[in-house]
């Protein structure tokens, strides 16, 4: 197995009295696509959102335990949460473009951080370049290059989700968290998102939460299976899908439950 990019140790999450993640320990390998599988309410999204500390923004949440990114605990009191979220991007189930133009959506991250990487040119030229590069990487450039100043709200849902992908990529994340990224999309739009993720996986560590077994089979190099807030199975996808160890995983994969 390749080296672990993220290590979760004894992670517990409570929403009010509800104990959603129980002593979670797992590792996410570097690069490739890791799928988090499991039935609804098993803690998939909770685990995902704990990886960039987005959970903290929800009321009444209590989190204990550690998550290590490149050996550093992201829950350390000295850890910088905005820096973390720059390294770990997030793609939500339903696309939420920011209330501004297509261009400004992609430029939002670089502007917030005041980082405009590029070889030459003025700040604006570099920003133009960043916007174009990331819209291309998200497979949206062809459709919007002539109306970059139009409100993002004018785009279709599928285009909006690709815009959200471009927006996330514009801050050059090392890890990309995707929470059921195709659940609000029609099959064709979903396929485009999947193929974009697939083409990104050599450069970025991608973690996809999904309850679609077929999607996980198509995409994943590595699989985690969650059950009622606990990890019941993990490993390379060929191993998990072909020779699952846990009885519940077998039942889940064969379609008896979930």
């Amino acid at each position, binding site marked *: 197995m390749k080296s672990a990019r993220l290590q979760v140790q004894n992670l517990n999450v409570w929403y009010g009295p509800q104990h959603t993640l129980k002593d979670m320990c797992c590792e996410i390998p570097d690069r490739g696509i890791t799928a988090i599988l499991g039935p609804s309410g098993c803690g998939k999204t909770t685990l995902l959102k704990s990886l960039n500390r*987005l959970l903290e923004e929800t009321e009444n949440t209590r989190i204990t335990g550690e998550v290590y990114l490149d050996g550093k605990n992201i829950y350390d009191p000295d850890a910088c949460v905005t820096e973390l*979220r*720059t390294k770990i991007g997030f793609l939500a189930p339903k696309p939420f473009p920011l*209330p501004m133009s297509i261009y400004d959506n992609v430029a*939002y991250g670089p502007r*917030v951080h005041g980082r405009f990487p590029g070889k030459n040119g003025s700040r604006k030229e570099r920003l133009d370049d960043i916007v174009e590069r990331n819209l291309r990487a998200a497979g949206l450039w062809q459709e919007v290059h002539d109306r970059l100043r139009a409100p993002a709200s004018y785009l279709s849902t599928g285009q909006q989700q690709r815009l959200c992908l471009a927006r996330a990529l514009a801050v050059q994340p090392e890890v990309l968290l995707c929470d059921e990224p195709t659940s609000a999309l029609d099959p064709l739009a979903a396929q485009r998102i999947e193929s974009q993720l697939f083409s990104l996986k050599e450069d970025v560590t991608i973690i996809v939460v999904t309850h679609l077994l077929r999607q996980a089979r198509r995409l994943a190099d590595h699989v985690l299976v969650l059950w009622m807030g606990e990890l019941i199975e993990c490993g390379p996808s060929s191993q998990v899908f072909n020779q699952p160890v846990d009885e519940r995983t077998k039942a889940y994969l064969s379609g008896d439950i979930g």
Partner: protein
Amino acid sequence: MNRRMIEEKLFKGLMLASLLIVLGSLGLIFLTVLKHGLPALNLAMLTQTPKGGYYLGKEGGILNAIVGSLCLAGGATIIAFLLGFPIAIYLQFYATRRRIAEVVRLTMDVLWGIPSIVYGAFAFILMLWLGVRASLLGGILALAFLELPILTRGMDEAFTMVPTALKEASYGLGATKIETAMKVVIRQTAPVILTAILLAFGRGIGDAASVLFTAGFTDRLPDSLFRPVASLPLAVFFQLATPFPAVQQRAYASALVLTALILFISILSRALANKMKKHIIR
């Protein structure tokens, strides 16, 4: 016809009736003000300050009150916004899990319900204590207190309507709370914020009781923060209280000016709000 259909018809009728009552009274107000005010309205009323004997029916106009009211309500709205905006941001972004948010909201709601004469009296006592005379500044402060809860709660409610996922989208890109508030939430709620500002401005410009003691009245145009200033509601009040029919008609003309002013601002802000709506994410 069965019972459910009758019920449906009955409630439709009741709704229509209450709509007619509301629209009817609004129409009657407009008609009354127009009927009594329009004959007395002329260019001099809008462009001149009261000359000697204006309140006896002689020459002059109410420019002092028009400019005074705009200064009072404008200044008060700016101050109320400067105070209320940080409060609303704090309530939504920093105090979400704390009891203090509930206490602040309750306080604001209680303040909203306080009659404006009480604000006037309170501000007057405060001014006596500080040794400040009735002035533009006093009026602005009294009105700012009156407008503060309207603006704060208006913005607070607007921010509440912002989807959590939209805020998370901004946080997820590494933006801080204040960046998210200033760059995303404000844009998303701009039309509602504008409406809240208009509501507060309308309440401020139309209020007579809170400026009665605090701003006083004068025939001069406002030229200093520390001198008394005229206002349209008090101009209406004083002119209506004279025994001269001609001056009473001018009171209606003043009311007409006040109404037209508020109508103009409403339409303007609606147009602006519609322009802002294209970016809103649903």
